[in-house]
Structures are given as structure tokens and as C-alpha cells.
């Protein structure tokens, strides 16, 4: 029972993006949780934690970077690697400054994204 699938959490306020990412990532063999709301992240507790979080910088009503800062400040969640994405390429600097391990600009090259995920999980 050790071959547990790696759990990924994707947060973006665009449902279409969540949909195709879910299709692609599940085909790659990940377990995928999606959410359009940032509030969800703050309610994560033991048991439900993912191994990696994909997070958009701009969520309706919330700044993704604040969320990352929060996650990195909590003992339970600070070890989870975070990849941030955004349509603003300039957001990379501030995303990394907030604590994200990696960044990819939208519209992204899927193969690149898959490679980044694999790298962070190994």
C-alpha cells in the first residue's frame, strides 16, 4: 500500500484551466485536487495535505503571494513545494520572494510544467 499517488493541489479562478490541468496531470499519474478559491488553502489540516501546490498569483479577492507567505509560515504546510503561475511574467520575482519554489508564465508550455512538477517532487 506504499504506492500512494502524489497529491497535487491546483488553485486558479479559471475553471477551464483547472479542467485541462486535471486531465493531463491525472494521466501522468497524480492525484489532483482543484479549487477556485484561495480560502480553501487556509483550512487545510493534517490528512488532507498535498505534496505540491500549483497556485495562481491573482485570485479573485486574494493575492496568491499572501497565501504562499501564510503557508510557508505554518509548520504543517511550510514543507510543501509551491509552483506559482501568472499571465504577468514580472510576477515571478515577487512570487519567489514570497516563498514559491518555482514559477511559470501563462500561457505555459505543458511539457515544461510537467518537468518542473517532477523535479520538485523528487
Amino acid at each position, binding site marked *: 500500500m506504499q504506492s500512494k499517488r502524489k497529491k497535487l493541489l491546483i488553485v486558479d479562478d479559471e475553471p477551464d484551466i483547472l479542467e485541462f490541468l486535471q486531465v493531463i496531470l491525472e494521466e501522468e499519474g497524480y492525484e489532483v485536487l482543484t479549487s477556485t478559491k484561495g480560502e480553501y488553502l487556509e483550512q487545510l489540516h493534517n490528512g488532507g495535505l498535498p505534496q505540491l501546490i500549483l497556485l495562481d498569483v491573482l485570485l479573485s479577492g486574494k493575492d496568491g503571494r499572501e497565501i504562499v507567505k501564510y503557508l510557508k509560515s505554518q509548520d504543517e504546510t511550510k514543507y510543501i513545494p509551491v509552483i506559482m503561475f501568472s499571465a504577468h511574467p*514580472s510576477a515571478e520575482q515577487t512570487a519567489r520572494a514570497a516563498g514559491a519554489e518555482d514559477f511559470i508564465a*501563462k500561457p505555459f508550455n505543458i511539457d515544461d510544467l510537467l518537468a518542473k512538477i517532477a523535479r520538485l517532487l523528487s
Partner: protein
Amino acid sequence: MPGDPLEGQEVLQQVAHAPLPGENAPAAAASASTVRTYFASIEQGESAAQQRAEEAQKLLAAIVAFSDDAIISKTLDGIITSWNNGATRLFGYSAQEAIGQHITLIVPRELWPQEDEILARLRRGIHIDHFETLRVAKDGRSLDISLSISPIRGEDETIIGAATIMRDISRQKAMARQLWEREEQERFLTEVSKVLASTLDYQGTLANIARLIVPRLADWFAVDLLDAEGHFQLAVLEHQKAEQVEWARALRERFPIDYDAPAGLPQVARTGRSELYPEITDEMLAAAARSEEELAIARQVGYSSLMLVPLVARGKTIGVVTFVATESGKKYNARDLALAEELGRRAGVALDNARLYNEAQQARDQLEIILQGVADGIIVYDKDSRIIYANEAAARMTDYASVENLQRARPLEPTRRFEITDEEGRPFPLDRLTHKRVLAGERKAQAIIGYTQKAGGRPERWSLVTSSPVYDDRGEILFVITITHDITERMLAEQRKDEFISMASHELKTPVTSLKGFVYVLQRRLRKQGDAQALHYLERIDTQLDKLTRLVSDLLDLSRMQVGKLDLQRTLVDLDALIAETVENMQAATPTHRLTIEGATRAQVSGDEDRLAQVFINLLTNAIKYSPSANRVEVHLAREQDCAVVRVQDFGIGIDEAHQQQIFERFYQVTDPEEKTYPGLGIGLHISKTIVERHQGCIEVHSRKGQGATFSVFLPIVER
């Protein structure tokens, strides 16, 4: 001792050696006392002495007879007892007519009291020497004389009469009078000059002159000035009595000047020569009058004498001055005319100055009104950057309470409340202020300046500032004029537009992300199914999506460049490697052209690798796009001095020289009809130029229409 025979000799000697009367004044006194002595000695009646005295008497009589001076003796009551030839010559009376008459025969009536006084003094034994007074001749002429009188004493020392010597001093008097008159004239002219110089007020000057002239020099005084059409405008008309002036003005209206008259105002104006009419006769009036009525009025005026002199300024006749004597009965002569002409010259200059000053003042006032009314700020700096003029708008724009405050501000700090920034929001370097650039040698400097509250934030206002120099006749800078035009509206509109573009491009990227995502999903599925054709179509979709992405990215870049937010990640970039990679990637997608690299830069540059790549991709894309009938694009690498040079050369349609400067501008697209078939947003080159410049490099183009184009990028090398 009287009676001494020797004394008579002495007298003789004295008389013989005394200077002849008329040579110098002391002689008259000497002669008088000598004569006194002579008469005294006669009274003695000593025989021997008498004989000598008789001889002396004859001699003296001869002298007295032929003296130029008038020698008269009289009793204490004033009866003439002797009268010499000189007296006859001077007064016109013969000795027979005069002797026995009272001395008042020759004394003007008004001076009789004076004569009484003289007689009174004589009785007291007082001499009178060189007394200047007036006497009257037989024909009634007034004579200026100088007289010396001595009392004659009898043998008991009592005074029995008086001896008078009189000298005609009319000539001296006349000369003195002339001198005095000349001095008076000088004094008058000085006064005139002072008055003329006292004011630049046109009307005031004229009024002052008129008051000086009337009634001193004339009863009537008029100044007529020539206007631009050569017609006379009456500028001033003066007489002692105001109502006369009114009457005369009315007359002038009714009897306008005849410009064809052979004499008078028009002639003086034409020739610049004065006219003098010392005596106005009735015949002259009749000859000049154009009608009976005019003649009657002219007679009424009572013309006695008339002078017309030109008003001269800067070598031109600007008007005519009229001096008329009427009730005073004055008759003008050549000397009066000379004075009047001098007056005309001085007044002419003064009036001209007043007029010029007036015009200058008016022009300045008009200019001031215009400058104050203009909405743009206008500041004039001297060559030391001090503000010498500023209008209200300028004070407002630079946020000073008033123009005075602005002028007092220190030269390098044009604003108080605001920080000034450039277009990209960076602090504006004070040495790059446009007026400083002009002072440094630029012919015309322009800049966009933003004003932000010191607290920070976005600029509240924007100005387009243009400075240009004003040179003196040596070609050196005299002033710099800076015009500040408010472009806040325009800039805000541009900013809104840029923000919109930024937002829009962000919004556009989101659906494109989804599109690419689903294409990927489909590609996966169809690969499994082996549907090659469908895969091919999906690939085409994907390519287009990438293109779309690039366009949207360019738009985003553009808008962010405008607000200064083009961020560059600086690293050391191996230029040759970057070029090689870029060309390789481009070639993979370009079957139509062969892309070759020749040469090497062997250089490292400091910069953003992605952005530099963006530039080269843009240049290569354009090279391919604009050479559809060619089959190659050449990249030349080189190292020139301290720059790495990358040249991208195509063999296509080329760029007309007229457009070469403008192709780097935002949104610029050539409007040549045949080039309409080349798609694009027209922003690629602008972005490339901005990126290159932000890397402290520059970009150039060399091309001729129909002969391809070479774009050269210069980047500063960073030594390892």
C-alpha cells in the same frame, strides 16, 4: 596855493599830460577835477598868474571845445552855463540853444527826480563818478550815458555850480543788452530742455512747451504734427486766454489747411525750412485769404508777426511750430527765428522720444496682455539660468503663489511642492532641464515632465516643455525661452489606454492558456489513436496560439514600457551563444529562408537574456517577413572598439530613407500601399529599440528601397 603862478603851470602840465578824454574812464574824473582847479585859478585874478592863466584858459578851452565827451557846466539851480562841441554832437543842441536853459532840457521827464537828487548831493560837495543813466537828445532819442559830476567851488570855497562830463555809452549798452539777451535765450533754452527732458509723456511735453512760450515768446503758439499720411494733426494750441483757444480751434476746423499753398505749414513741412514774417500787413492777409470771411477773421486775430519753424527729429520733419504775435505787438527778427528754430529742434527730439517711448510702452503692454492671456507657461531665463520673466500661467504650473515667488526661487529648483519626473516616472535630472540643455548648446530642447506630490504616487500633472535660445548679434545666447504646455489630459488618457492594454493582454492570456491546454490534451489523445492528420491540424492551432501569445506579450510589453515597468534581469550573457541558439530555433520554424551566421563577437554583455533574445527574434522575423522573394537572411557578428555588433541583413523590399527614422516609433507602420500586405502591429521594432537602449546600446538601420535592409545592434561589452 591858489594864485600861485607855478600852480597855473602845474595845471597846464597836468592838463597837457592827462590822457585824452574818451580813452579811459579815470581821465574823466581827472579832467573834472582839473577843470575845477582851472576855473578856481581863474577866479583868483592875479595878474601874472592871470596872464598864464589866460594862456592856460585858451588851451583848456581848446581841449574842452574839441573833446569827444560832452562837457557841461551848470549852476546849482541847474542852469546850463557852458556847453561844448561834444555836448552839441551828443545832444544836438547848439551852445546858443543850450546855455541858459535848465539842465532838464536833456533829462528825460521820468528822471527829473534823479536830477534833483544829483543837485542835492552836489550842494553837499559830493562827487558823482561813472554814473550810468539816460539822457534825451534834441530829436527825442534816448541816450545811454555815463556821467561824472563835480561841484565847482568859488573863492570862498562855497559851491557855486557843477561841471559834468558825459560819455555816450550807447554802444556798450547795446552790446551788453545783446549779451544779456543771448544769455536770456540760453537760460530759456535750458529751461525748455529741462522741461522737455522732465517727462516722456507726450501730451505733458507739449503742454509744458506751450506754457513756456506763451506769453513770453508769442501770443499764440501751435504745434502741428504730421501723421502717417502726411496730414497735419493739431497737437497743441495755446493762448493766455482759454476762450480764445476754443475760438481758434473752431476756426481751424472751419478753415482747414490748404496743402497746395506755396507757403505756410505745408511748405515748411515739405522743405524743412522756417518762414519768418516780421511784419504782417493787411495786403498779406488779403493775399492769403481764400474768402471774405476768412479775411475778416484774420483781421480780427490781429496778426502782428509770425514765425513757422519745423519740428525736426532724426533728420526728418515731424511737424511745424507756429509762433504768432498779436496783441503784444512784438515783431520777430532773425534772432527770434534762430531761437525758435533751436526750440523746434529740441522739441522735435523730445516729442519724437516721447512718441517712441509711448509706442514701446504700448507694444510692451500688448505683449504683456498676450503673454498673460496665453494658457501656456512662458519663462525667460538669462544665460545664468536666472528667471527674468515669467507669466502667470508659468507660476501656476510650477506651483508658486505668484510670479514674484517664482522669480525669487533658486534657479535649479523650479518647483516647491512637486517632485518632477520623466515620462517613465524616474526623477528628472536637473541638469537635463530643457533650458539647461539649450544653454549647453542644443538648438531646441523638448521634454515631458511629470509633477508628483512629494509624498509619492503617480504624477498629478504633465507638461510638455520646450526651450529655445535667443541670440544677440554676436551669435551668443542672450536668453532662453521656455514654453510649458499642459498635457495632463493627454498623458492621463495615454495612461488609461496603457493600463487598459495591460489589463486586456492579461485577460487575453487566460483564455489562450486554456486553449493551449486543451490542444495538448487533444494531442495526447489523438497520438494514442494515431490520427496523424488531426494531429497535424492541432499542431497548426498550437502554432497560431503561440503567435497570438507573442502578439499579446508585445502589447503588454509596450504598455509596461510606457509606464517604466520594463524589468530586466541582468546577467552576463554570452552573446555568440545566444545568437546561435536564437537563429537555430528560428531556422527550425522557417523553411523558406536560410539563416546564416558569419563572424563572432567573442563578447559578454550584461543584460536580460530573454529580452535580448526577443530583440533578435524580432529582427529575424522582420527580415524574413519583408523578403518574401529572397531565400536567405545573413547575420554578421563583429566586435568594434568596445561594442559587440550584431547585424541582421535581409535582401527584400528595403525601407525608404524617408521612413527610416520613424520605423522605430510606436505603432508606426509604413503607409505604402504595396506594404499593406505585411501584417503586424508595428510595435516590434519599438520594443526592440527600447530594450536595446535599456541595455545602454543602440540600434540602427541601413537600407534603400528595393535593396534590402540591415539592422545593426550595438551593445557595450563587459570584460570578463
